[in-house]
Each structure stands twice: as C-alpha cells, then as structure tokens.
C-alpha cells in the first residue's frame, strides 16, 4: 500500500467535507435533500474564476504567484467575490423556488424534485456559458515536497487541508456556542416551535444558505485549484457529499467533515486497489453500508 494514498485521501476528503457541511445544514434546517448543492460548488468555482479574471484585468500584479503557492493575491480576493455571488445565487433560488414551495406547504419530496430540476438547469447553464472545456485557476506547476514516511504534498494541498480544518473549527464553535447557532439547532428540531420561542425562522433559513453556499463556493474553488474546473464537477461530487453528510449524521458539522475525510480516504485506497475507474462507486458502497448498519450516521440522533 502506498502511503501517499493517505495524503491524497485527506486532500480530496477536505473538499468533500467542506461541501458536505452546507448540505448537512440545509438538510437538517430546511429539511430536504438539496440536489443543487453540488452545483453550488461548481458555480462557486466558475464565479470565483470570473471575478479573478476581472481582478486580473484591473491589476495585473494580482495574478503573480505568491511563494510557495501556485496562485497570487488575486485568488483569495476573488474567493470573497465568488462567495458573495454564490450566496446570492442560493438566496435567489430559495426566494423564487424553494421558499415558495415551503410557503405553499409542499411536501419535502416536491422540494427535493424541484432541486433536482434546478440542478440540471444550473449545470447546463454553466456548460452553456463556459463550455464543457476544463478551466484552471492557475497554469503554474508545483513541486510536491516530501513530508516523510513516503508521503508528498504541494503547498496548495497543505493549505487546503489547513484552511478546511480552520473553517470547520470556526463553524463548529459558531453552531455550538453562539446565539445564531442555538437558533439554528432549534429550527432544525422544530421550526414552528422556534417561532413560538421568538426566533425569526426566515432569518435562520437565510443564515443557513449563507453558510452552506459560502462553504460550497470555497470547496468548489479548492477542487478547482487541486484538479480542474468543469461544469460537471459539482454533479460528480454530489454522491460523495450526500454519503459524507449521511455518514456523519445529518445536521452534524464535525460529522460531515469526518464523513468527508473517510470517503476521501476510502476513495484514495480504492483507487489503488481496484483502479481509478471505480472511484465513484466508493461513495455508493459507503452510503449503502451506512443505511444498512447505522442510518442515523456517526453523530446523528436516532429517529432523524
């Protein structure tokens, strides 16, 4: 077994975990499996790419790589813009589609179906605007530095892992310690009662989209930075995201992260054992196993 699989797994697992956080939050607070979430990752990557292009046009120096990374200051700046635009996309979609269906009292599964239709439309719209050709944040090549024990990683990859852990920690503290987090947990248990307690449920819903879409954008940028940007990247990540969210336990942020890392590692090892072409099946196998053995997930409450 090649120890490099551990690093590869942690890196792709970080992206999956970060993406799954948004999915698990919308799932537990808005109470539906959002099939457009994967497309938020892809849109986040493309929107960030667009903002980076505009910034690069304004100030050419922003594109120059900052040692030891492969990208310049333009990218972190562009991520801020990309996050804002992805959040706007999610809030807009909630206003014109999901929010209306909720207000009408439509069944969960109708909202799931609407998210499925919207995800197809969003993905194809990306393909129409940017074509199916892959895009890249940077053309610079990076050398992977040895980490010991036969493992190597590029500075970009280490940054991704570090940033992910930091974001997860911050989010976890927000949800467990702050008033906003308390309100989110309350709405996830019982939205009607939350109103009776004086919580503005609409506001909690908006906060949920902001966190979810923001994390999705960052995860999309990470995936784009480490591999490439394609209109279908979000769709290809959707099953790993769902599997990670369910494995971790719906509603649990540390669970989603842990689920993401487990799936990333399992994929990396599976690639070495059975071949890269079966990579996508790993999430499915894990999903089925979880549903069979522990449907509430690692950190989930029973009866969820």
């Amino acid at each position, binding site marked *: 077994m090649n120890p490099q699989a551990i690093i590869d797994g942690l890196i792709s697992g970080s992206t999956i975990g970060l993406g799954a956080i948004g999915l698990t939050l919308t799932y537990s607070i808005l109470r539906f499996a959002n099939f457009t979430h994967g497309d938020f990752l892809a849109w986040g990557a493309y929107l960030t790419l667009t903002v980076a292009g505009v910034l690069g046009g304004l100030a050419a120096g922003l594109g120059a790589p900052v040692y030891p990374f492969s990208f310049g200051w333009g990218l972190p700046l562009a991520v801020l813009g990309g996050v804002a635009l992805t959040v706007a996309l999610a809030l807009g979609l909630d206003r014109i589609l999901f929010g209306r269906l909720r207000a009408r009292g439509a069944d969960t599964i109708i909202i799931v179906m609407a998210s499925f239709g919207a995800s197809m439309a969003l993905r194809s719209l990306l393909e129409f605007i940017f074509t199916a050709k892959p895009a890249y944040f940077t053309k610079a090549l990076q050398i992977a530095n040895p980490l010991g024990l036969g493992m190597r990683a590029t500075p970009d990859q280490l940054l991704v892992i570090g940033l992910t852990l930091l974001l997860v920690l911050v989010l976890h503290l927000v949800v467990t310690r702050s*008033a906003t987090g*308390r*309100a989110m*947990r*309350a709405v996830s*248990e*019982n939205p*009607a*009662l*939350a*109103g*009776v*307690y*004086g*919580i*503005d*449920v609409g506001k909690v819903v908006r906060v949920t989209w902001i966190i979810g879409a923001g994390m999705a954008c960052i995860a999309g940028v990470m995936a784009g930075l480490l591999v490439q940007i394609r209109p279908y990247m979000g769709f290809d990540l959707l099953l790993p995201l769902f599997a990670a969210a369910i494995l971790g336990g719906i509603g649990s942020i540390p669970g989603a992260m842990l689920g993401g890392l487990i799936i990333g590692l399992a994929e990396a090892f599976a690639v070495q054992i059975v071949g890269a072409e079966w990579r996508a099946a790993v999430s499915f196998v894990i999903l089925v196993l979880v549903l069979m053995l522990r449907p509430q997930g690692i950190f989930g*409450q029973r009866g969820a």
Partner: protein
Amino acid sequence: MTALALTGLHAGYDRDLPIVKGVSFTVQRGEAVCILGPNGAGKSTMIKAIAGLVPCFGGEVRLDGTDITGLASHVLVGKGMGFVPQMENIFTRLTILENLQIAAQLLPKQDRAGRIDAMFDMFPDLGSRPRELAGALSGGQRQMLAAARALLTEPRVLMLDEPSAGLSPKLVGQVFDTLRRISETGVTLVLVEQNVRAALGLTERALVLVDGQLAHDGPADALHDGRLLGELFLGHRTAEAGS
C-alpha cells in the same frame, strides 16, 4: 382595560374549510379565561391562530388595542404574546439553559441573565441542572420549562394549549398551582383545556367553543355542576349525528 380582543375571527388550514368560524370575545387585563369545548371544536386551532401559527382568513385579533391579525409567531412574542403549545413545547435536543437563552434573546442584553435566574428561582427543579438536555426532563418538568420559557419575556398575555395533556392527576395539580401563581402576578391567562374540573378551579370565566363558534361566555361557576356543559357538548353531538 382590554388585553386581548377577537372580532369575527375566521381561521383554519384551508380557506374553503375554516375551522374557527366567526369568534368574538374580549379578555380583560389580569383576567384568567379558560376555553372549553368538545374534541374537534376548534379550540386549539383558534389559540394557534391568535399565536400566529395558523392562517386567519377574516376578522381581527387585537393585543392591547394593536391589530396583530396574521402576524408571524416570532413577531408576536416581541409584542408581548406568550404561547405554550400542547405537545413538543420545548427543544429536547438543547439544554435547559439553552431553551431559556433562546427566549431571552428578545430582551436587552443586560436583562437576559437576570431573567433567566428569576425563572430558575421560580422553578427550582430547572435551576438545579441548567446544563442537562431538556429531553431528559419528565412530563411535568417539561411543562414547567415551557411555562418558564414563555414567562421569561414577561408577556402581557400568556396562552396555554392544554397544559394538563398527558400528565398524571398529581402533576396536573402541580401545573395548575404554578398557573395560579402566574395569574396572581397579574399576567393575563388564556387557557385551552380538556380537563374541565382543573381548568374551572383556576379561572373565573369560561368560554365554550362548539363547532368553531362561541356557544357560551360567562362565569366559570355556572359550569361547575356540569349540566350546562353537558348540554352544550351533547347538543353538539346530536346535531353532528343528525347532519
């Protein structure tokens, strides 16, 4: 001084099938009123409509003279309306303290800790273990927490939907003792009850709702011997069987 006034209220889940059909009554400040009626009469729907949980299709609800018809439940809390739903009235996956902290969020920052402490003084059972999950509480203690949560923001009107539901007779006594204490502090109480005897022991005035309409509004004493109540309830039943 009128605390709560309903005028011709129509409410329900479906505009074509209102469950509450034109109910009017007023509750004076400091008064304790109990709403009785047979199963399915619309008591619960009416109180939920006042609390902003069920759509109103017509008529008006006023709180201290202000029109509050159709306002969202969280807005009403800020306006001085406290509501305790029948079941599932606390967040079981949050701690006792967190339950109260959420309610305290509506108060100015400097008042929050003081009000939470005041509630813990009033309900020592809760104050002794603030960091326990609310889901670990017994049925009676849950009702205490629900009442404490609603009282925390010092509402002018406190409405409770069947506080005795699912409790043993001993606990019902305890809950109603607490309600009496609350009423004595001057809070206006509106109570929906199935447990007629317990409710009539607490309130001076009783409303009887039958088939979404007000069938009786008067002193609770008049209902004590049960004959009038039986007539009102049974009268409804025969009418239903005939229709």
